[in-house]
């Protein structure tokens, strides 16, 4: 056996701890399961996309790109 030390956001840790507590399981089990699943599947995690607010000058450039794409 070995130890894995990871730095994570404090809020995330708190929320995860509470969620695990509700289910009556230790947080360690959640992390171990996530690692087992990753090793078994080899899949990569891709998060939820987030739309970015931009300035009018940036939007203008983006729309120019949009126009160029419409012509392709």
């Amino acid at each position, binding site marked *: 056996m070995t130890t894995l030390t990871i730095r994570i956001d404090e809020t995330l840790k708190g929320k995860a701890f509470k969620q695990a507590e509700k289910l009556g399981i230790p947080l360690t089990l959640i992390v171990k399961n996530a690692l087992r699943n990753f090793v078994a599947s080899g899949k990569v*995690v891709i998060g*939820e996309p*987030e739309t970015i607010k*931009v*300035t009018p000058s940036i939007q203008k*450039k983006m729309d120019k790109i949009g126009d160029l794409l419409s012509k392709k």
Partner: protein
Amino acid sequence: MKLIITDSIEKHELSALERVFSLSVIKVAAIKSLKGPGENIKNSISIPKTILRKIYITSSSGAGRAMFLLQIEAEKAILVIIRQKKDKQIGANMAVENPKFKKVLERNLDLIIRDLEVGKYKEYDLESQIAI
């Protein structure tokens, strides 16, 4: 659905990260960006033709952020920026309030315009990836 990567973005953004984020991973991220939550679009008074979406990627080789410019009607995603999370100046804070990010974003948008105008880009069909 299509993913477009222009030659300049391949050179400036992707070449250094080829071993960290494969093209397949970028394709899946592009699909998710195109299919992602539409609330922001629906709630807008005027529907923009293009939007920017940021997406988190975690692979066995490292964590990062990719940003795509989406052409909503044509369902096309153009890779604008891709950085590792450990890139503190840009990757860790992809928001227009970050001057360093804003500078790179504007530069990359200019490069994309130039590349598209002269046909220097590659287009990837994403339909075949949807089953993933």
